[in-house]
């Protein structure tokens, strides 16, 4: 479907966000971001500034944040480029939300490796918890989006909620994460089965000597080779 997701009503959004300006905190960060680029190359700051703005909107609305058109225009003015150029960036990256989302933006990966590893169960858990794709729950807590591969395939299936990844999910652990969030607590991010980063499920099977400290295998490798 090549139609644009409905960008919220302009008049209303302009009334609410027309006067958007950096908060004190964002102002400091914005100055730091802009400082990273040489004069005349401020356009390079489009992405970090949009992210900063989305976060500020999030803080102001107690959600994950989104980018109302007047806020996109504000960012464009900050870096002195035409609105269209920043708007293109904001629409290109799916990390920028063009419509309001809930407190937690649940992005579940639906690409092949995750599907093979059971993402259907993750979706089912979301569904049974009241989430539906592309919608925000009535309490404003969760927005569910199906996304493509997020590069966590070795810990499939996975979902991303705001800034954290939740990996090695199944039906129960997904439900647990959602319930914890609903209670206002912070669930443990990362693998839900307790494995460390993306090492094999039952613990390391190779290079075991390297788990806790660096280890020089070269001597052993040479003897093994000679033998």
């Amino acid at each position, binding site marked *: *479907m*090549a*139609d*644009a997701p409905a960008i919220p009503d*302009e008049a209303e959004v302009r009334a609410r966000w027309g006067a958007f300006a950096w908060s004190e905190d964002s102002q400091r960060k914005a100055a730091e971001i802009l400082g990273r680029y040489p004069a005349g190359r401020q356009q390079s700051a489009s992405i970090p500034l949009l992210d900063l703005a989305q976060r500020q909107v999030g803080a102001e609305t107690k959600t994950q944040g989104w980018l109302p*058109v007047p806020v996109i225009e504000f960012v464009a003015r900050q870096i002195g*480029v*035409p*609105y*269209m*150029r920043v*708007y*293109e960036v904001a*629409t*290109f990256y799916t990390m920028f939300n063009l419509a309001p989302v809930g407190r937690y933006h649940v992005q579940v990966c639906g690409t092949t490796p995750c599907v093979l590893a059971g993402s259907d169960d993750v979706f089912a858990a979301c569904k049974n918890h009241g989430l539906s794709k592309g919608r925000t729950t009535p309490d404003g807590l969760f927005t569910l989006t199906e996304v493509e591969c997020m590069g966590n395939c070795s810990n499939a299936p996975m979902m991303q909620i705001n800034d954290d990844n939740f990996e090695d999910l199944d039906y129960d652990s997904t439900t647990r994460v959602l319930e914890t969030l609903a209670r206002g607590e912070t669930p443990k991010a990362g693998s839900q089965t307790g494995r460390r980063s993306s090492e094999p499920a039952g613990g390391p099977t190779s290079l075991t000597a390297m788990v806790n400290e660096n280890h020089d295998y070269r001597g052993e490798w040479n003897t093994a080779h000679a033998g």
Partner: protein
Amino acid sequence: MPKLKVDGIEVEVPQGATVLQACEAAGKEIPRFCYHERLSIAGNCRMCLVEVKPGPPKPQASCALPAADNQEVFTTTPMVKHAREGIMEFLLINHPLDCPICDQGGECDLQDQSVAYGRGQSRFAENKRAVTEKYMGPIVKTIMTRCIQCTRCVRFAEEVAGVEEIGAIYRGENMQITSYLEEAVQSELSGNTVDLCPVGALTHKPYAYEYRPWELKKTLTIDVHDALGTNIRLDSRGRQVLRALPRVNEDVNEEWAHDKTRYAVDGLVRRRLDRPFVRKDGKLVPVSWNEAFAAIAAVEHGGSVAAVAGDLVDCETMFAAKTLVTALGGSRLEGRQTGMDYDTSSLGAVAFNSTIAGTERADAILLVGTNLRWEAPLVNTRIRKAIKRGAKVFAIGPETELTYKVEWLGDDLGVLSDLPQAVLQAFDGAERPMVIVGPAALAGAHGAALGLVDTLGLVKPDWNGFNVIHLAASRMGGLMLGYASKGGIADLHDARLTFFLGADEVDYTRFDGFKVYVGHHGDRGAHHADVVLPGATYAEKPGTYVNLEGRVQRGERAVFPPGDAREDWAVFRALSDAMGATLPFDSLPALREEMYAAVPALRHPGLANYEWSPPSLGTTATGRIEGYPIQDFYLTNAICRASPTMQRCSAELVHGESFAEAAE
């Protein structure tokens, strides 16, 4: 200068040329969609694939590959053909194939190239994507499902027009070309995106569903909506001009035309004067030619005869009128309708001497009282090019958006004799400095601007940097034919008989004598005239025009004038008989011979040679530039005022009215 072989043909191309250009130099045609000579290289359609050795064993996009020494390029190998066929198949996957109802049909790159590279039928059984229409304003109609995302329109808007309002939003399959928030594109050059669009995604809104390109008669002529002399082609069917398109002329308009040139043609069939009128009891009454002539012949002028040339007339018309005025014993001629009276003793001092193409090479530019974007949009695009090469631009006058960065020096003309250090510095090192004087400053600061020739060193052995912008297509031709009086039009006010040649911007209330209007539209002139004689528009007569740089150009007749209207020179010829002062020519060639004898420079198309001997006028200027003469770009003459498209553009783009689009 790399030397390479294309299909065995050895070619040498300039440094920095691409393989595509090398192929063209070898006479090989390379299919393309995104590549365009006048835009930056995008390399995103992949239609131009060729095989190149040495290089990876895969086809390469020739438009984005620099030509290098000893390359061997193949454009006809099975690999190339296969690759292009693949690309074409991909392009057509999401293309609606609605050629039978598409206005681009018959002049569509995609259609043409699919003849060579398309498969007979589609292997794609999935759903096609569809994209909603995008509103882009009164000029450009969009059918976005047809878009192949070549981004030519985006690059044109950004690079040439200088309005970054068109872009590609979303990504992958969802990518769509649109104007920002689907607002009307605020550009006087937006029609060019339609020509650039290789498919039917952008079409001419005003001409939608009006014609098929192959049923049109094509006539080469010259545009009259500004003083630039844009080379155009008028496409007509029967008695009606259906569209105007630019022709390529590197010296004048490159291959662009502004929206007035393109879309005012629907004014050619509206509000036309198609029979003579005579004022009786305060009312204009239709009469026969003879009656109209008799009414003029009855005027007791006693030799007090004058002629005022309008902005759109050709040299032939002005020459015929001048000959009649002289034969009747008069001598007063003027073309500057709004009352300007700058010194015209040396035409070099009122011409665009650097030439339009030369503007690109300028390295320091000072604009004095000119809103170039409206007064000469295609000079403005040249300045954008100069800036890309590093030129600095300063301007005196009320601040206005010119689509590029300008250092404004205020609107006080006094600054001309006391230029800020920054300007002097920029001009000091400049090899090709330019001063461009617009009509807003010409009246009060002609002398002061000429003074800059010395202070800024504008004139060098191979460069003349003094330039004047005119607004009327007839201006330079008129000045060459003597249409200028010392005190401007005020000198003519008391004439007992005055001919107005399509002059619609004159203050008629100042003229007490008998007023004869010879023109084509029922506009201001006709409302004030005592006798109206119907004439021909630029589309309806062959004519000679001289543009602001002094370039003599000739246009042809596309259609015949409506009703009783006749070519203007013929009107004067017939009238001269009735007045007992028969003109000495019976045909256009005969008139032209007389005209060339009087002004030899008009004989040869090309740049007329104005000698550079500027008059010495007072070099101090005081006062402020209050504003620019063009208040509304889209309604500057009788033809545009009669054009519904131009009225809509004016309402929407200048006056900010919004129009709800009916869903189609």
